[in-house]
């Protein structure tokens, strides 16, 4: 029951170009982040979203601003699509105090209470169980928001997936589960990891509606999430959406992707690039000309440059920040333990 390709009719030119801008922004942001990583400006892990941009942009465009988004460690694109300034996202990558998490989270732990992005999680599948709680909180307080939960195909292998699916369906929680199936959990081909070939039977096992969608088609993803969000908002519970997508880079920048062929990668990049596909569609429909798309791309590039300069110029956290936020009640009730002992004279 694949979603039929969305028409462009639902969205006007301005809105369509806004989607293009966001995808281009994320693409260029990630390319810039990769560059900064190789220059040593960014440490730790860096999981790029290149190739998967249509997912976050399409899905989040289907939400209301007050809806919640929960994500994994591959969440830079989700953060930007949720409306967080690219400056704050880049600053977080640089470990600067102006970052989304004041430099304490890093690439994998973006959070914005203001924008209702409830975290990037680096424990695979954690956001699935947490989103059940967010859904419960919404339901408990009779609110009309929903919680969109984004995860990869690897998260499906975790027990957390099954515990969360069951509870969310059982309690009819207002959650949308979107699996960005990019074919690989790190280096593991999904065909070697899943006992079934799609998530459809898994959704059926929990009595949940299932939608499969082309993960390179921003409008198709938008339409699927709109449908699932409406179901959730109506009190009819969660939907499991499986998006078939591909990451153009390795799992992280540390991964040369030896587990797949260069031919496979080249074919996806040449034929299934979500930005190129969208550009072709806009032009074909007469909704954008080359110069419109070039302007959108250039504007996105300028925002990335601005974000990078901002991150470069921002200060690192002060040393005193080390003990901040361990607990609510100040510097941490146990911080005194770390004070050097003072021997009696």
């Amino acid at each position, binding site marked *: 029951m694949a979603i039929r390709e969305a028409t462009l009719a639902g969205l006007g030119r301005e809105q369509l170009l806004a989607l293009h801008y966001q995808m281009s922004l994320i693409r260029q942001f990630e390319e810039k982040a990769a560059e900064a990583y190789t220059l040593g400006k960014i440490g730790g892990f860096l999981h790029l979203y290149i190739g998967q941009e249509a997912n976050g942009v399409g899905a989040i465009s289907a939400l209301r601003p007050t809806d*919640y988004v*929960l994500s994994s460690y591959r969440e830079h694109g989700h953060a930007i699509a949720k409306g967080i300034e690219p400056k704050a996202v880049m600053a977080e990558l640089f470990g600067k105090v102006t970052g989304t*998490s*004041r*430099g*304490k*989270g890093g690439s994998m*732990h973006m*959070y*914005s*209470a203001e924008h209702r992005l*409830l*975290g990037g*999680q680096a*424990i695979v599948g*954690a956001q*699935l*169980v*947490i*989103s*059940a*709680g*967010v*859904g*419960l*909180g*919404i339901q*408990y*307080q009779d609110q009309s928001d929903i*919680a969109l939960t984004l995860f990869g195909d690897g998260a499906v292998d975790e*027990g*957390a997936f099954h*515990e*969360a699916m*069951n*509870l969310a369906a*059982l309690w009819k929680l207002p959650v949308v589960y979107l699996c960005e199936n990019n074919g690989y959990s790190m280096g593991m081909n999904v065909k070697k990891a899943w006992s079934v070939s799609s998530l459809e039977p898994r959704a059926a096992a929990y009595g949940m509606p299932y939608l499969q969608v082309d993960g390179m088609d921003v409008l198709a993803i938008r339409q699927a999430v709109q449908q699932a969000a409406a179901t959730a908002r109506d009190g009819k519970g969660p939907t499991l959406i499986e998006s078939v997508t591909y990451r153009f880079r390795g799992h992280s920048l540390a991964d040369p992707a030896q587990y797949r062929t260069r031919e496979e990668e080249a074919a996806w990049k040449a034929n299934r690039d979500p930005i190129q596909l969208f550009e072709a569609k806009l032009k074909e429909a007469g909704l954008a000309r080359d110069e419109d798309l070039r302007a959108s791309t250039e504007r996105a590039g300028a925002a990335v440059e601005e974000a990078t300069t901002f991150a470069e110029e921002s200060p690192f956290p002060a040393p005193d920040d080390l003990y*901040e*936020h*361990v*607990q*609510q*009640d100040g510097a*941490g*009730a*146990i911080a*005194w*333990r770390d004070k050097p*002992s003072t*021997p*009696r004279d």
Partner: protein
Amino acid sequence: MRVITYRDALREAIREEMQRDELVYILGEDIAGYGGTYSVTKGLFEEFGEKRVRDTPLAEEVIAGTAIGSALVGLRPICEIMTMNFSLLASDQIINSAAKFHYMFAGQTRIPVVFRMPGGGGAQRGAQHSQFFETLFGHIPGLKVVMPATPYDAKGMLKSAIRDNDPVVFVEHELLYSVKGEVPDEGVEYTVPLNRGEIKREGRDVTIVTFSRMVHISLQAAEELAKEGIEAEVLDMRSIRPIDLDLITESVKKTNRVVIAEEGWKYYGTGQGIAALIYEHAFDYLDAPIGHVTGKDVPMPYSKPLEQAALPTRADVIAAVKAITPVGAGAR
């Protein structure tokens, strides 16, 4: 003051806090229809209904994750883990989520979740149902870990834990539920802080540092020691994290001798952590090496005589005290 059980004290704390704050709810396995495995939540479902007293599937990871997620959007969950032995299945969420979010998201979250869980041995429940894991949670920055020993403290600390904006691991003991003690009348407001121990018995000759059920065993040991002229000071730490080090060092300055008594295993555990802090902060006040009474270094056996041999006893505490306290110390 009236006398009630530890179990009833906990239930009163939950009921009073649920009456006080609509955002407080409780979830867990068999807490509603069944009334709680140890009957702590008996009657709450009838009083508050299924919205606020929620039975869950047997799925500890999503129970803990649900509590945490609901806290992110404003609720104040009490999360009952049926026994501490099952907390390992929830431990990823407790350690990697609850303990971390406030820090790694730089203060944008609060996680006012109470993870209630009973542990401990002595009821012939075997190797997988007799454990204390307070050491695991006590190791983690971002968590508060408390282990009240009396009905008064259980009620007062559970109320504090529910009102606290940080995640609290609230460790009960399966053999304490029927222990009785004095508690103010229902509705008479009091709380007990989450970061302070208490002197449960004053003494001048030796300090016994203990918590949870071993408080009662240590108090019994102190009574016997007093007959022999040794006055033991019994410190009920009540909280493992943070640990009330000031209470310990003040007592050590007076007694110059310490025995740590705990039910858990010896190596790399809570007691050894406390001993290291005493050596670090009060070494010069010690007149003898620190004594340490623990459970035996084995998985808990089922057979009654073997289980009794594995658990620390009053006699063990008395022996440990005498080993470091010279005869006639009490006559100083």
